[in-house]
């Protein structure tokens, strides 16, 4: 057998946002590395499409609205009990929005913060509870964005929520190290997905071209982000915690 430091055989991993875009690609990549994947998002039909695209057996799924943040601990206990204690959690569920400050309302900030940050916090909290992650520990990946680091007009609510993700990742990396739980973030730049395309609907084709030129390697593919997350979930990154990996085709290098 060839040596693969990213091998995930026998690992159970929860992927939120698995019904679409980057989360779907991450679930597929993890299944190819041998993981048993548990898919979570609201849309049952699209979750089943992801399920059908997974390699291997023993996967699971649940339709759940992460806006119900108070129910997350119970859902995590159910998943750990009925599926398996987890070796990994990847929080790909997230909301994107483009709205200038002038048009923004407190409710915009609250709704983005709820799914992008508070749901992530609840997932992390469950790692400190007994029996949710394996005794050998686990790895958690939250999804930030290059907007955690740099700005763009119209991204106030989004950038604020994604900057908060970084603070949450660093703090929980420190707090959860004693349970052998590692916590990291991936910070993607633009990858075409349903969510990103909707959020960019205000850009004309010429503006999209300009936007792509800001990515020295061009726009990314869902697999590019999925593979980075898989690395952070695997033992290949066993000494990495509290870090943020930009996966951005060079967007933030300039």
């Amino acid at each position, binding site marked *: 057998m060839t040596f693969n430091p990213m091998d995930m055989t026998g690992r159970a991993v929860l992927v939120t946002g698995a019904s679409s875009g980057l989360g779907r690609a991450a679930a597929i990549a993890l299944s190819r590395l041998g993981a048993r994947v548990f898919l979570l998002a609201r849309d049952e039909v699209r979750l089943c499409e992801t399920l059908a695209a997974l390699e291997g057996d023993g996967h699971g799924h649940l339709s759940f609205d992460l806006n119900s943040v108070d129910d997350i601990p119970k859902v995590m206990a159910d998943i750990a009990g009925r599926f398996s204690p987890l070796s990994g959690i990847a929080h790909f569920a997230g909301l994107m929005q*483009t*709205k*200038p400050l*002038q*048009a923004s309302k407190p409710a915009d900030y609250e709704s983005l913060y709820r799914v992008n940050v508070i749901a992530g916090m609840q997932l992390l909290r469950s790692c400190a509870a007994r029996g949710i992650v394996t005794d050998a520990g686990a790895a958690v990946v939250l999804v930030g964005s290059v907007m955690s680091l740099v700005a763009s*007009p*119209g991204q106030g609510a989004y950038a604020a929520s994604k900057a908060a993700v970084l603070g949450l990742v660093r703090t929980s990396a420190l707090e959860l190290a004693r349970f052998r739980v590692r916590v990291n973030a991936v910070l993607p730049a633009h990858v075409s997905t349903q969510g990103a395309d909707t959020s960019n*609907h*205000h*850009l*004309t*084709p010429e*503006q999209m071209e300009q936007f792509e030129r800001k990515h020295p390697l061009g726009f990314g593919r869902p697999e590019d982000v999925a593979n980075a997350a898989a690395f952070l979930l695997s033992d290949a990154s066993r000494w990495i915690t509290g870090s943020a990996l930009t996966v951005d085709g060079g967007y933030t290098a300039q």
Partner: protein
Amino acid sequence: MDQATFLGHMEESLRAKPGSIQMAHRFHDLDGWDSIGALSVIAVIDERYGVTMDAGELLSCRTVGELAGLVERNLRKAA
């Protein structure tokens, strides 16, 4: 759709003086008309009329009146 209210929304999103924007005005001639102004107009139309439009649709309207017409057609389609 009430025209005065529509113009009020345009003025609000472009930070223009009340009463200063007319249906016949061209967007390119308006103060504050730039990419962020366009974003604000898209956001206000989404919020007030529940009509989601993309940049192409907005930029296809040369005048404020053409945009009002587009929003109205969308509202009728939805009804």
